[in-house]
Protein backbone atom coordinates (compact mmCIF):
# COMPACT_ATOMS: atom_id res chain seq x y z
CA UNK A 1 0.00 0.00 0.00
CA UNK A 2 2.81 2.42 0.90
CA UNK A 3 4.66 1.50 -2.29
CA UNK A 4 1.53 1.99 -4.37
CA UNK A 5 0.84 5.33 -2.69
CA UNK A 6 4.39 6.46 -3.49
CA UNK A 7 3.90 5.46 -7.14
CA UNK A 8 0.61 7.35 -7.28
CA UNK A 9 2.27 10.39 -5.71
CA UNK A 10 4.95 10.25 -8.37
CA UNK A 11 2.27 10.05 -11.03
CA UNK A 12 0.34 12.93 -9.46
CA UNK A 13 3.37 15.19 -9.37
CA UNK A 14 4.43 14.24 -12.91
CA UNK A 15 1.06 15.18 -14.42
CA UNK A 16 0.92 18.35 -16.45
CA UNK A 17 -2.46 19.36 -15.03
CA UNK A 18 -1.06 19.14 -11.51
CA UNK A 19 1.85 21.40 -12.43
CA UNK A 20 -0.44 23.87 -14.19
CA UNK A 21 -2.89 23.77 -11.28
CA UNK A 22 -0.20 24.40 -8.69
CA UNK A 23 1.27 27.22 -10.80
CA UNK A 24 -2.26 28.66 -11.01
CA UNK A 25 -2.60 28.47 -7.23
CA UNK A 26 0.60 30.43 -6.73
CA UNK A 27 -0.49 32.97 -9.32
CA UNK A 28 -3.83 33.46 -7.54
CA UNK A 29 -1.97 33.77 -4.24
CA UNK A 30 0.24 36.48 -5.74
CA UNK A 31 -2.82 38.31 -7.09
CA UNK A 32 -4.49 38.06 -3.69
CA UNK A 33 -1.46 39.68 -2.05
CA UNK A 34 -1.39 42.41 -4.68
CA UNK A 35 -5.09 43.10 -4.03
CA UNK A 36 -4.40 43.16 -0.28
CA UNK A 37 -1.60 45.65 -0.84
CA UNK A 38 -3.94 47.95 -2.82
CA UNK A 39 -6.64 47.64 -0.13
CA UNK A 40 -4.24 48.37 2.71
CA UNK A 41 -2.72 51.48 1.17
CA UNK A 42 -3.51 54.63 3.22
CA UNK A 43 -5.20 57.58 1.56
CA UNK A 44 -3.10 60.02 -0.39
CA UNK A 45 -2.55 63.53 1.00
CA UNK A 46 -5.23 64.98 -1.30
CA UNK A 47 -7.74 62.26 -0.32
CA UNK A 48 -6.93 62.87 3.35
CA UNK A 49 -7.56 66.61 2.99
CA UNK A 50 -10.86 65.91 1.26
CA UNK A 51 -11.89 63.63 4.13
CA UNK A 52 -11.02 66.30 6.69
CA UNK A 53 -13.09 68.88 4.81
CA UNK A 54 -16.03 66.49 4.84
CA UNK A 55 -15.59 66.02 8.59
CA UNK A 56 -15.54 69.75 9.25
CA UNK A 57 -18.72 70.25 7.23
CA UNK A 58 -20.47 67.45 9.05
CA UNK A 59 -19.30 68.69 12.44
CA UNK A 60 -20.46 72.23 11.70
CA UNK A 61 -23.84 70.88 10.64
CA UNK A 62 -24.05 68.90 13.88
CA UNK A 63 -23.15 71.94 16.01
CA UNK A 64 -25.72 74.07 14.16
CA UNK A 65 -28.62 71.65 13.93
CA UNK A 66 -28.25 68.72 16.34
CA UNK A 67 -30.51 70.16 19.06
CA UNK A 68 -33.10 71.31 16.53
CA UNK A 69 -33.09 67.94 14.82
CA UNK A 70 -33.44 66.13 18.13
CA UNK A 71 -36.44 68.22 19.14
CA UNK A 72 -38.15 67.67 15.83
CA UNK A 73 -37.41 63.94 16.00
CA UNK A 74 -38.91 63.67 19.49
CA UNK A 75 -42.08 65.29 18.24
CA UNK A 76 -42.26 62.79 15.42
CA UNK A 77 -41.58 59.96 17.85
CA UNK A 78 -44.54 60.92 20.00
CA UNK A 79 -46.80 60.75 16.97
CA UNK A 80 -45.66 57.23 16.07
CA UNK A 81 -48.09 54.35 16.72
CA UNK A 82 -47.08 51.49 19.04
CA UNK A 83 -45.00 49.43 18.93
CA UNK A 84 -42.28 52.02 18.41
CA UNK A 85 -38.53 52.13 19.03
CA UNK A 86 -37.10 53.95 22.06
CA UNK A 87 -36.60 57.64 21.67
CA UNK A 88 -32.83 57.25 21.98
CA UNK A 89 -32.77 54.64 19.25
CA UNK A 90 -34.79 56.86 16.95
CA UNK A 91 -33.38 60.26 17.76
CA UNK A 92 -29.71 59.75 18.39
CA UNK A 93 -27.46 62.33 16.72
CA UNK A 94 -23.90 61.54 17.86
CA UNK A 95 -21.16 64.03 17.34
CA UNK A 96 -19.10 63.25 14.19
CA UNK A 97 -15.52 62.12 14.84
CA UNK A 98 -12.54 62.66 12.60
CA UNK A 99 -11.61 58.93 12.61
CA UNK A 100 -14.98 58.13 11.01
CA UNK A 101 -13.93 60.11 7.96
CA UNK A 102 -11.36 58.82 5.52
CA UNK A 103 -10.06 55.32 5.39
CA UNK A 104 -9.55 53.35 8.59
CA UNK A 105 -6.20 51.58 8.86
CA UNK A 106 -6.12 47.93 7.78
CA UNK A 107 -5.86 45.66 10.83
CA UNK A 108 -4.11 42.35 10.26
CA UNK A 109 -6.14 40.45 12.86
CA UNK A 110 -9.40 41.60 11.23
CA UNK A 111 -8.70 40.86 7.57
CA UNK A 112 -6.70 37.66 7.89
CA UNK A 113 -9.52 35.19 8.74
CA UNK A 114 -11.45 36.27 5.62
CA UNK A 115 -8.34 35.94 3.47
CA UNK A 116 -7.65 32.45 4.80
CA UNK A 117 -11.25 31.46 4.21
CA UNK A 118 -11.10 32.79 0.65
CA UNK A 119 -7.87 30.90 0.09
CA UNK A 120 -9.49 27.72 1.38
CA UNK A 121 -12.11 28.00 -1.39
CA UNK A 122 -9.68 28.19 -4.28
CA UNK A 123 -7.45 25.55 -2.73
CA UNK A 124 -10.40 23.17 -2.36
CA UNK A 125 -11.55 23.87 -5.90
CA UNK A 126 -8.09 23.25 -7.37
CA UNK A 127 -7.64 20.10 -5.28
CA UNK A 128 -11.01 18.75 -6.37
CA UNK A 129 -10.32 19.49 -10.02
CA UNK A 130 -6.86 17.91 -9.98
CA UNK A 131 -8.12 14.93 -7.93
CA UNK A 132 -10.98 14.32 -10.36
CA UNK A 133 -8.62 14.55 -13.33
CA UNK A 134 -6.06 12.31 -11.60
CA UNK A 135 -8.49 9.39 -11.56
CA UNK A 136 -10.88 10.40 -14.35
CA UNK A 137 -8.03 10.42 -16.90
CA UNK A 138 -7.08 6.91 -15.87
CA UNK A 139 -10.54 5.65 -16.68
CA UNK A 140 -11.01 7.65 -19.87
CA UNK A 141 -7.61 6.53 -21.23
CA UNK A 142 -8.20 2.92 -20.14
CA UNK A 143 -4.87 2.86 -18.27
CA UNK A 144 -6.67 1.65 -15.14
CA UNK A 145 -7.19 -1.75 -16.79
CA UNK A 146 -3.48 -2.07 -17.45
CA UNK A 147 -2.74 -0.95 -13.89
CA UNK A 148 -5.03 -3.64 -12.46
CA UNK A 149 -3.18 -6.36 -14.37
CA UNK A 150 -0.17 -5.38 -12.25
CA UNK A 151 -2.02 -4.88 -8.95
CA UNK A 152 -5.41 -6.62 -8.90
CA UNK A 153 -6.19 -5.81 -5.24
CA UNK A 154 -8.66 -3.09 -6.02
CA UNK A 155 -9.15 -1.69 -2.56
CA UNK A 156 -5.41 -1.18 -2.25
CA UNK A 157 -5.36 0.54 -5.61
CA UNK A 158 -8.31 2.70 -4.58
CA UNK A 159 -6.83 3.56 -1.19
CA UNK A 160 -3.47 4.44 -2.72
CA UNK A 161 -5.07 6.89 -5.14
CA UNK A 162 -7.07 8.66 -2.43
CA UNK A 163 -4.09 8.79 -0.09
CA UNK A 164 -1.79 10.11 -2.78
CA UNK A 165 -4.19 12.87 -3.79
CA UNK A 166 -4.93 13.87 -0.19
CA UNK A 167 -1.35 13.80 1.07
CA UNK A 168 -0.04 15.38 -2.12
CA UNK A 169 -2.12 18.46 -1.45
CA UNK A 170 -1.15 18.87 2.21
CA UNK A 171 2.23 20.53 1.52
CA UNK A 172 0.79 22.54 -1.38
CA UNK A 173 -2.02 23.92 0.78
CA UNK A 174 0.33 24.54 3.70
CA UNK A 175 2.76 26.51 1.53
CA UNK A 176 0.03 28.56 -0.16
CA UNK A 177 -1.61 29.43 3.16
CA UNK A 178 1.73 30.25 4.75
CA UNK A 179 2.50 32.62 1.86
CA UNK A 180 -0.91 34.29 2.23
CA UNK A 181 -0.47 34.61 6.00
CA UNK A 182 3.10 35.89 6.06
CA UNK A 183 2.72 37.96 2.88
CA UNK A 184 -0.33 39.72 4.30
CA UNK A 185 1.44 40.30 7.61
CA UNK A 186 4.37 41.98 5.88
CA UNK A 187 2.06 44.15 3.75
CA UNK A 188 -0.13 45.21 6.67
CA UNK A 189 2.90 45.74 8.90
CA UNK A 190 4.17 48.19 6.32
CA UNK A 191 0.86 49.89 5.46
CA UNK A 192 -1.58 49.22 8.30
CA UNK A 193 -1.85 47.93 11.83
CA UNK A 194 -0.25 44.77 13.16
CA UNK A 195 0.26 46.04 16.67
CA UNK A 196 -2.93 44.39 17.85
CA UNK A 197 -1.71 40.97 16.72
CA UNK A 198 -1.35 38.83 19.81
CA UNK A 199 -0.19 35.28 20.38
CA UNK A 200 -3.85 34.27 20.50
CA UNK A 201 -4.40 35.89 17.09
CA UNK A 202 -1.58 33.82 15.64
CA UNK A 203 -3.00 30.72 17.28
CA UNK A 204 -6.48 31.34 15.85
CA UNK A 205 -5.10 32.06 12.39
CA UNK A 206 -2.91 28.95 12.47
CA UNK A 207 -5.97 26.90 13.44
CA UNK A 208 -7.96 28.30 10.50
CA UNK A 209 -5.02 27.58 8.21
CA UNK A 210 -4.68 24.04 9.55
CA UNK A 211 -8.37 23.36 8.98
CA UNK A 212 -8.09 24.81 5.47
CA UNK A 213 -5.29 22.28 4.81
CA UNK A 214 -7.64 19.52 5.99
CA UNK A 215 -10.45 20.67 3.69
CA UNK A 216 -8.01 20.87 0.76
CA UNK A 217 -6.89 17.27 1.32
CA UNK A 218 -10.52 16.23 1.68
CA UNK A 219 -11.46 18.00 -1.56
CA UNK A 220 -8.64 16.21 -3.41
CA UNK A 221 -9.86 12.83 -2.15
CA UNK A 222 -13.48 13.67 -3.00
CA UNK A 223 -12.35 14.75 -6.46
CA UNK A 224 -10.75 11.32 -6.91
CA UNK A 225 -13.93 9.58 -5.80
CA UNK A 226 -16.22 11.62 -8.05
CA UNK A 227 -13.77 11.11 -10.95
CA UNK A 228 -13.85 7.39 -10.27
CA UNK A 229 -17.64 7.23 -10.04
CA UNK A 230 -18.21 9.23 -13.23
CA UNK A 231 -15.06 8.02 -15.03
CA UNK A 232 -14.46 11.38 -16.64
CA UNK A 233 -12.97 14.65 -15.39
CA UNK A 234 -15.42 16.85 -17.27
CA UNK A 235 -18.39 14.91 -15.87
CA UNK A 236 -17.04 15.28 -12.33
CA UNK A 237 -16.61 19.02 -12.73
CA UNK A 238 -20.05 19.29 -14.34
CA UNK A 239 -21.69 17.52 -11.41
CA UNK A 240 -20.00 19.79 -8.88
CA UNK A 241 -20.91 22.92 -10.82
CA UNK A 242 -24.49 21.65 -11.07
CA UNK A 243 -24.55 21.06 -7.32
CA UNK A 244 -23.21 24.53 -6.58
CA UNK A 245 -25.75 26.23 -8.82
CA UNK A 246 -28.80 24.12 -8.01
CA UNK A 247 -28.32 23.11 -4.39
CA UNK A 248 -26.18 25.91 -2.97
CA UNK A 249 -27.79 28.60 -5.12
CA UNK A 250 -31.39 27.89 -6.06
CA UNK A 251 -32.33 25.38 -3.35
CA UNK A 252 -30.72 27.39 -0.53
CA UNK A 253 -32.54 30.52 -1.65
CA UNK A 254 -35.94 28.85 -1.66
CA UNK A 255 -35.51 26.63 1.37
CA UNK A 256 -33.40 28.71 3.71
CA UNK A 257 -33.89 26.43 6.70
CA UNK A 258 -32.12 23.63 4.80
CA UNK A 259 -28.88 25.62 4.74
CA UNK A 260 -27.31 23.71 7.66
CA UNK A 261 -27.39 20.61 5.45
CA UNK A 262 -25.57 22.11 2.51
CA UNK A 263 -21.84 21.73 1.96
CA UNK A 264 -20.68 25.33 1.78
CA UNK A 265 -22.00 26.55 5.12
CA UNK A 266 -20.61 23.44 6.85
CA UNK A 267 -17.29 24.01 5.10
CA UNK A 268 -17.31 27.60 6.44
CA UNK A 269 -18.33 26.48 9.93
CA UNK A 270 -15.43 24.03 10.00
CA UNK A 271 -12.80 26.37 8.58
CA UNK A 272 -13.86 29.52 10.51
CA UNK A 273 -14.97 27.76 13.70
CA UNK A 274 -18.67 28.63 13.50
CA UNK A 275 -20.39 30.33 10.60
CA UNK A 276 -23.35 32.63 10.29
CA UNK A 277 -26.24 32.27 7.92
CA UNK A 278 -29.52 34.07 7.59
CA UNK A 279 -33.14 32.94 7.44
CA UNK A 280 -36.29 34.96 7.03
CA UNK A 281 -38.67 34.42 9.96
CA UNK A 282 -42.19 35.76 9.68
CA UNK A 283 -44.84 36.11 12.37
CA UNK A 284 -48.14 37.82 13.01
CA UNK A 285 -47.90 40.62 15.62
CA UNK A 286 -50.41 41.40 18.41
CA UNK A 287 -52.01 44.06 16.22
CA UNK A 288 -52.54 41.52 13.42
CA UNK A 289 -49.69 42.82 11.27
CA UNK A 290 -47.51 40.26 9.47
CA UNK A 291 -43.83 40.98 10.09
CA UNK A 292 -40.83 39.27 8.51
CA UNK A 293 -37.35 39.57 10.04
CA UNK A 294 -34.00 38.59 8.61
CA UNK A 295 -32.58 36.51 11.45
CA UNK A 296 -28.91 35.58 11.83
CA UNK A 297 -28.20 31.98 12.84
CA UNK A 298 -24.97 30.31 13.79
CA UNK A 299 -23.84 26.92 12.54
CA UNK A 300 -21.40 25.44 15.02
CA UNK A 301 -17.90 24.18 14.31
CA UNK A 302 -18.93 20.77 15.65
CA UNK A 303 -21.82 20.57 13.18
CA UNK A 304 -19.50 21.45 10.31
CA UNK A 305 -16.86 18.95 11.41
CA UNK A 306 -19.34 16.09 11.81
CA UNK A 307 -21.01 16.95 8.52
CA UNK A 308 -17.73 16.94 6.57
CA UNK A 309 -16.50 13.79 8.31
CA UNK A 310 -19.75 11.96 7.56
CA UNK A 311 -19.72 13.15 3.96
CA UNK A 312 -16.12 11.95 3.57
CA UNK A 313 -16.81 8.53 5.09
CA UNK A 314 -19.94 7.99 2.98
CA UNK A 315 -18.17 9.01 -0.22
CA UNK A 316 -15.08 6.90 0.52
CA UNK A 317 -17.24 3.84 1.21
CA UNK A 318 -19.39 4.43 -1.87
CA UNK A 319 -16.37 4.88 -4.12
CA UNK A 320 -14.68 1.78 -2.69
CA UNK A 321 -17.79 -0.34 -3.11
CA UNK A 322 -18.33 0.77 -6.70
CA UNK A 323 -14.68 0.33 -7.68
CA UNK A 324 -14.51 -3.10 -6.02
CA UNK A 325 -17.52 -4.37 -7.97
CA UNK A 326 -17.22 -2.54 -11.26
CA UNK A 327 -16.17 -4.28 -14.47
CA UNK A 328 -13.18 -2.52 -16.01
CA UNK A 329 -13.14 -2.43 -19.77
Amino acid at each position, binding site marked *: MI*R*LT*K*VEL*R*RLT*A*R*RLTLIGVAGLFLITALLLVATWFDARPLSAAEQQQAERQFQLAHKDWVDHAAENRAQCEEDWKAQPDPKPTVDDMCSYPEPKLEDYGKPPTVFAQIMPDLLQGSSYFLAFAAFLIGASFVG*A*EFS*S*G*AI*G*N*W*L*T*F*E*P*RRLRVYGSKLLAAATGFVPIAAVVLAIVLLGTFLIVDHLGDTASTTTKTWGDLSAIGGRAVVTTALAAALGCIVGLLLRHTAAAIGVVMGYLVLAEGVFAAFLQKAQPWLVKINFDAFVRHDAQYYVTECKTGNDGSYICDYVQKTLSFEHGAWYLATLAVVMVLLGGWVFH*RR*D*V*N
Partner: protein
Amino acid sequence: MPDVAISTRGLRKTYRTRRGRKVVAVQGLDLEVPTGGVHGFLGPNGSGKTTSIRMLLGLVRSDAGTMTVFGKTVPAQLPEVVGRIGAIVESPKFFPAFTGRKNLELLAEAIGAPRTRVGEVLEQTSLGERGNDRFRSYSLGMKQRLAIAATLLKEPDLLIFDEPTNGLDPAGIREIRETMRGLGDQGKTVLVSSHILAEVEQVADTVSIIGHGRLLASGTVAEVIGGSTAPTVKVAVGNHEAATRILTAAGMTVRADGNYLLVEGAPDPADVTRRLAHQELYVSELVPVRADLESVFLELTEGEGL
Protein backbone atom coordinates in the same frame (compact mmCIF):
# COMPACT_ATOMS: atom_id res chain seq x y z
CA MET B 1 4.40 -26.18 -12.07
CA PRO B 2 0.95 -27.63 -12.92
CA ASP B 3 0.46 -29.12 -16.40
CA VAL B 4 -2.42 -26.76 -16.97
CA ALA B 5 -1.67 -23.06 -16.89
CA ILE B 6 -5.27 -21.89 -17.25
CA SER B 7 -8.45 -23.78 -16.55
CA THR B 8 -12.03 -22.59 -16.62
CA ARG B 9 -15.15 -24.61 -15.82
CA GLY B 10 -18.66 -23.47 -16.62
CA LEU B 11 -17.55 -19.86 -16.93
CA ARG B 12 -20.45 -17.53 -17.57
CA LYS B 13 -20.87 -13.80 -18.01
CA THR B 14 -23.99 -11.84 -18.86
CA TYR B 15 -24.12 -8.14 -19.63
CA ARG B 16 -27.04 -5.81 -19.62
CA THR B 17 -27.31 -3.34 -22.45
CA ARG B 18 -28.32 0.24 -21.77
CA ARG B 19 -31.86 -0.70 -22.71
CA GLY B 20 -31.82 -3.44 -20.11
CA ARG B 21 -31.54 -6.33 -22.56
CA LYS B 22 -29.47 -9.26 -21.36
CA VAL B 23 -26.55 -10.32 -23.55
CA VAL B 24 -24.77 -13.56 -22.80
CA ALA B 25 -21.11 -13.02 -23.58
CA VAL B 26 -19.75 -16.27 -22.19
CA GLN B 27 -21.90 -19.29 -21.42
CA GLY B 28 -20.38 -22.24 -19.67
CA LEU B 29 -16.89 -22.01 -21.10
CA ASP B 30 -14.62 -24.95 -20.30
CA LEU B 31 -11.10 -24.05 -21.31
CA GLU B 32 -7.76 -25.66 -20.64
CA VAL B 33 -4.47 -24.08 -21.65
CA PRO B 34 -1.49 -26.39 -21.19
CA THR B 35 1.66 -25.10 -19.55
CA GLY B 36 4.38 -24.07 -22.01
CA GLY B 37 4.05 -23.23 -25.69
CA VAL B 38 1.65 -21.06 -27.63
CA HIS B 39 -2.08 -21.64 -27.32
CA GLY B 40 -4.38 -20.00 -29.88
CA PHE B 41 -7.74 -18.81 -28.60
CA LEU B 42 -10.00 -18.49 -31.62
CA GLY B 43 -13.54 -17.39 -32.18
CA PRO B 44 -15.61 -14.98 -34.24
CA ASN B 45 -16.04 -11.40 -33.12
CA GLY B 46 -18.37 -11.29 -30.13
CA SER B 47 -17.79 -14.93 -29.26
CA GLY B 48 -16.53 -14.05 -25.76
CA LYS B 49 -12.74 -14.22 -26.14
CA THR B 50 -11.94 -10.83 -24.68
CA THR B 51 -14.55 -11.15 -21.93
CA SER B 52 -13.05 -14.52 -20.93
CA ILE B 53 -9.57 -12.98 -20.81
CA ARG B 54 -10.85 -10.05 -18.77
CA MET B 55 -12.42 -12.46 -16.29
CA LEU B 56 -9.14 -14.36 -15.99
CA LEU B 57 -7.36 -11.09 -15.21
CA GLY B 58 -9.93 -10.02 -12.61
CA LEU B 59 -11.07 -7.03 -14.66
CA VAL B 60 -14.59 -8.38 -15.15
CA ARG B 61 -16.59 -10.38 -12.62
CA SER B 62 -17.96 -13.73 -13.72
CA ASP B 63 -21.58 -14.65 -13.03
CA ALA B 64 -20.83 -18.34 -12.58
CA GLY B 65 -18.12 -20.93 -13.01
CA THR B 66 -14.60 -21.38 -11.74
CA MET B 67 -11.20 -20.29 -13.05
CA THR B 68 -7.70 -21.22 -12.06
CA VAL B 69 -4.35 -19.86 -13.19
CA PHE B 70 -1.33 -22.00 -12.29
CA GLY B 71 -3.61 -23.87 -9.88
CA LYS B 72 -4.75 -20.74 -8.03
CA THR B 73 -8.40 -19.81 -7.96
CA VAL B 74 -9.12 -16.60 -9.79
CA PRO B 75 -10.00 -13.90 -8.83
CA ALA B 76 -9.68 -14.76 -5.11
CA GLN B 77 -6.05 -15.86 -5.33
CA LEU B 78 -5.11 -13.74 -8.32
CA PRO B 79 -2.72 -11.54 -6.28
CA GLU B 80 -0.66 -14.68 -5.59
CA VAL B 81 -0.05 -15.35 -9.28
CA VAL B 82 -0.42 -11.94 -10.91
CA GLY B 83 3.34 -11.48 -10.81
CA ARG B 84 3.63 -14.46 -13.18
CA ILE B 85 1.10 -13.09 -15.67
CA GLY B 86 1.77 -10.50 -18.35
CA ALA B 87 -1.24 -9.39 -20.34
CA ILE B 88 -2.20 -7.10 -23.18
CA VAL B 89 -5.95 -6.81 -23.49
CA GLU B 90 -7.12 -5.32 -26.79
CA SER B 91 -5.24 -2.12 -27.63
CA PRO B 92 -2.37 -1.06 -25.35
CA LYS B 93 -3.54 1.54 -22.83
CA PHE B 94 -1.05 3.74 -21.03
CA PHE B 95 -0.98 7.32 -19.79
CA PRO B 96 -0.81 9.22 -23.08
CA ALA B 97 0.98 12.31 -21.76
CA PHE B 98 3.79 10.32 -20.13
CA THR B 99 6.77 8.95 -22.00
CA GLY B 100 7.03 5.25 -22.65
CA ARG B 101 9.83 5.08 -20.10
CA LYS B 102 7.81 6.95 -17.47
CA ASN B 103 4.86 4.60 -17.97
CA LEU B 104 7.11 1.59 -17.48
CA GLU B 105 8.87 3.14 -14.47
CA LEU B 106 5.55 3.60 -12.69
CA LEU B 107 4.56 0.01 -13.39
CA ALA B 108 7.99 -1.28 -12.35
CA GLU B 109 7.81 0.67 -9.10
CA ALA B 110 4.31 -0.66 -8.43
CA ILE B 111 5.54 -4.26 -8.56
CA GLY B 112 8.88 -3.58 -6.93
CA ALA B 113 10.95 -4.31 -10.03
CA PRO B 114 14.32 -2.53 -10.21
CA ARG B 115 14.38 0.57 -12.39
CA THR B 116 17.21 -0.89 -14.48
CA ARG B 117 14.70 -3.47 -15.69
CA VAL B 118 12.88 -0.68 -17.57
CA GLY B 119 15.90 0.02 -19.76
CA GLU B 120 16.36 -3.67 -20.39
CA VAL B 121 12.79 -4.30 -21.57
CA LEU B 122 12.86 -1.14 -23.70
CA GLU B 123 15.97 -2.46 -25.43
CA GLN B 124 14.44 -5.93 -25.72
CA THR B 125 11.47 -4.47 -27.58
CA SER B 126 13.61 -2.10 -29.71
CA LEU B 127 12.14 0.97 -28.03
CA GLY B 128 15.35 2.17 -26.42
CA GLU B 129 15.68 5.22 -28.64
CA ARG B 130 12.02 6.24 -28.40
CA GLY B 131 11.64 5.54 -24.69
CA ASN B 132 11.69 9.24 -23.81
CA ASP B 133 8.95 10.17 -26.28
CA ARG B 134 5.38 10.60 -25.15
CA PHE B 135 3.17 7.52 -25.48
CA ARG B 136 0.64 9.48 -27.55
CA SER B 137 3.28 10.08 -30.24
CA TYR B 138 3.89 6.35 -30.73
CA SER B 139 2.71 4.41 -33.77
CA LEU B 140 0.39 1.49 -33.15
CA GLY B 141 3.28 -0.91 -33.56
CA MET B 142 5.34 0.96 -30.98
CA LYS B 143 2.41 1.01 -28.58
CA GLN B 144 2.11 -2.72 -28.98
CA ARG B 145 5.81 -3.14 -28.33
CA LEU B 146 5.58 -0.95 -25.24
CA ALA B 147 2.76 -3.16 -24.00
CA ILE B 148 4.96 -6.20 -24.52
CA ALA B 149 7.77 -4.41 -22.71
CA ALA B 150 5.36 -3.82 -19.80
CA THR B 151 4.48 -7.50 -19.62
CA LEU B 152 8.17 -8.39 -19.60
CA LEU B 153 8.78 -6.20 -16.53
CA LYS B 154 7.45 -9.03 -14.44
CA GLU B 155 9.40 -11.77 -16.21
CA PRO B 156 6.13 -13.70 -16.46
CA ASP B 157 5.48 -17.41 -16.98
CA LEU B 158 2.14 -16.75 -18.67
CA LEU B 159 1.60 -14.13 -21.35
CA ILE B 160 -1.86 -13.26 -22.57
CA PHE B 161 -2.12 -11.41 -25.88
CA ASP B 162 -5.59 -10.35 -26.95
CA GLU B 163 -5.68 -9.59 -30.69
CA PRO B 164 -2.03 -8.49 -30.60
CA THR B 165 -1.63 -7.77 -34.29
CA ASN B 166 -4.71 -5.59 -34.78
CA GLY B 167 -3.82 -2.63 -36.93
CA LEU B 168 -0.17 -3.59 -37.37
CA ASP B 169 1.64 -3.54 -40.71
CA PRO B 170 3.08 -6.81 -42.07
CA ALA B 171 6.48 -6.14 -40.52
CA GLY B 172 4.88 -5.48 -37.16
CA ILE B 173 2.76 -8.62 -37.41
CA ARG B 174 5.82 -10.68 -38.16
CA GLU B 175 7.70 -9.13 -35.27
CA ILE B 176 4.91 -9.89 -32.80
CA ARG B 177 4.56 -13.41 -34.18
CA GLU B 178 8.26 -14.06 -33.73
CA THR B 179 8.12 -12.63 -30.21
CA MET B 180 5.25 -14.94 -29.28
CA ARG B 181 6.92 -17.96 -30.82
CA GLY B 182 10.18 -17.10 -29.09
CA LEU B 183 8.46 -16.84 -25.72
CA GLY B 184 6.72 -20.16 -26.32
CA ASP B 185 10.05 -21.76 -27.22
CA GLN B 186 11.53 -20.45 -23.97
CA GLY B 187 8.96 -22.54 -22.12
CA LYS B 188 6.60 -19.67 -21.33
CA THR B 189 2.88 -20.19 -21.74
CA VAL B 190 1.47 -17.82 -24.34
CA LEU B 191 -2.29 -17.46 -24.79
CA VAL B 192 -3.04 -15.55 -27.96
CA SER B 193 -6.53 -14.63 -29.00
CA SER B 194 -6.80 -13.72 -32.64
CA HIS B 195 -9.11 -13.92 -35.58
CA ILE B 196 -6.18 -14.02 -38.02
CA LEU B 197 -6.23 -17.76 -38.33
CA ALA B 198 -3.26 -18.27 -40.62
CA GLU B 199 -1.15 -16.39 -38.12
CA VAL B 200 -2.28 -18.49 -35.18
CA GLU B 201 -1.72 -21.63 -37.19
CA GLN B 202 1.88 -20.55 -37.75
CA VAL B 203 2.71 -19.95 -34.11
CA ALA B 204 0.31 -22.04 -32.03
CA ASP B 205 1.04 -25.47 -30.63
CA THR B 206 -2.49 -25.92 -29.34
CA VAL B 207 -5.76 -24.12 -30.01
CA SER B 208 -9.22 -23.67 -28.56
CA ILE B 209 -12.08 -22.54 -30.76
CA ILE B 210 -15.09 -20.89 -29.14
CA GLY B 211 -18.40 -19.69 -30.46
CA HIS B 212 -21.25 -18.01 -28.60
CA GLY B 213 -19.19 -18.19 -25.44
CA ARG B 214 -18.81 -21.99 -25.56
CA LEU B 215 -15.87 -24.22 -26.39
CA LEU B 216 -16.31 -25.83 -29.80
CA ALA B 217 -12.98 -27.62 -30.24
CA SER B 218 -9.66 -27.88 -28.47
CA GLY B 219 -6.36 -29.68 -28.85
CA THR B 220 -3.18 -29.52 -30.86
CA VAL B 221 -3.50 -27.83 -34.22
CA ALA B 222 -3.14 -31.22 -35.94
CA GLU B 223 -5.81 -32.79 -33.74
CA VAL B 224 -8.27 -30.00 -34.34
CA ILE B 225 -7.73 -30.03 -38.09
CA GLY B 226 -7.73 -33.80 -38.32
CA GLY B 227 -10.69 -34.29 -36.02
CA SER B 228 -12.96 -32.00 -37.87
CA THR B 229 -12.40 -32.37 -41.57
CA ALA B 230 -12.37 -35.62 -43.57
CA PRO B 231 -9.11 -36.26 -45.52
CA THR B 232 -9.32 -35.24 -49.17
CA VAL B 233 -7.11 -36.05 -52.15
CA LYS B 234 -6.90 -34.36 -55.52
CA VAL B 235 -6.57 -36.87 -58.36
CA ALA B 236 -5.59 -36.44 -62.03
CA VAL B 237 -6.85 -39.34 -64.13
CA GLY B 238 -7.76 -39.79 -67.82
CA ASN B 239 -11.39 -40.89 -67.61
CA HIS B 240 -13.32 -38.86 -65.06
CA GLU B 241 -16.64 -40.62 -65.54
CA ALA B 242 -15.27 -44.12 -65.05
CA ALA B 243 -13.08 -43.07 -62.13
CA THR B 244 -16.02 -41.35 -60.43
CA ARG B 245 -18.14 -44.49 -60.82
CA ILE B 246 -15.46 -46.79 -59.39
CA LEU B 247 -14.61 -44.61 -56.41
CA THR B 248 -18.26 -43.83 -55.60
CA ALA B 249 -19.00 -47.56 -55.64
CA ALA B 250 -16.20 -47.92 -53.07
CA GLY B 251 -18.02 -45.48 -50.74
CA MET B 252 -15.98 -42.38 -51.49
CA THR B 253 -17.35 -38.95 -52.31
CA VAL B 254 -16.14 -37.59 -55.64
CA ARG B 255 -16.60 -34.21 -57.26
CA ALA B 256 -15.00 -32.54 -60.23
CA ASP B 257 -12.52 -29.70 -59.74
CA GLY B 258 -11.37 -28.57 -63.22
CA ASN B 259 -9.04 -31.21 -64.62
CA TYR B 260 -8.96 -32.98 -61.27
CA LEU B 261 -11.27 -35.02 -59.11
CA LEU B 262 -11.58 -34.22 -55.40
CA VAL B 263 -11.99 -37.44 -53.49
CA GLU B 264 -13.13 -37.53 -49.87
CA GLY B 265 -13.55 -40.52 -47.58
CA ALA B 266 -10.60 -42.57 -48.73
CA PRO B 267 -9.10 -44.27 -45.66
CA ASP B 268 -5.71 -44.05 -47.35
CA PRO B 269 -4.66 -42.34 -50.63
CA ALA B 270 -3.24 -45.70 -51.74
CA ASP B 271 -6.80 -47.06 -51.83
CA VAL B 272 -7.61 -44.59 -54.60
CA THR B 273 -4.69 -45.60 -56.82
CA ARG B 274 -5.25 -49.35 -56.15
CA ARG B 275 -8.96 -49.32 -57.01
CA LEU B 276 -8.43 -47.28 -60.17
CA ALA B 277 -5.44 -49.37 -61.29
CA HIS B 278 -7.55 -52.56 -60.93
CA GLN B 279 -9.81 -51.10 -63.60
CA GLU B 280 -6.82 -50.05 -65.72
CA LEU B 281 -7.23 -46.39 -64.94
CA TYR B 282 -3.84 -44.96 -64.04
CA VAL B 283 -3.39 -41.91 -61.84
CA SER B 284 -0.98 -39.34 -63.23
CA GLU B 285 -1.07 -37.10 -60.17
CA LEU B 286 -2.34 -37.44 -56.57
CA VAL B 287 -2.06 -34.63 -54.04
CA PRO B 288 -3.40 -34.83 -50.48
CA VAL B 289 -5.47 -31.71 -49.82
CA ARG B 290 -4.43 -30.55 -46.38
CA ALA B 291 -7.18 -29.06 -44.25
CA ASP B 292 -6.20 -25.80 -42.58
CA LEU B 293 -7.30 -24.15 -39.41
CA GLU B 294 -9.35 -21.62 -41.31
CA SER B 295 -11.57 -24.24 -42.90
CA VAL B 296 -12.01 -25.96 -39.55
CA PHE B 297 -12.77 -22.66 -37.88
CA LEU B 298 -15.35 -21.73 -40.50
CA GLU B 299 -16.91 -25.16 -40.32
CA LEU B 300 -17.18 -25.04 -36.53
CA THR B 301 -18.37 -21.48 -36.27
CA GLU B 302 -20.71 -21.57 -39.24
CA GLY B 303 -23.64 -19.23 -38.66
CA GLU B 304 -21.97 -17.46 -35.72
CA GLY B 305 -21.35 -14.31 -37.74
CA LEU B 306 -17.71 -13.40 -38.19
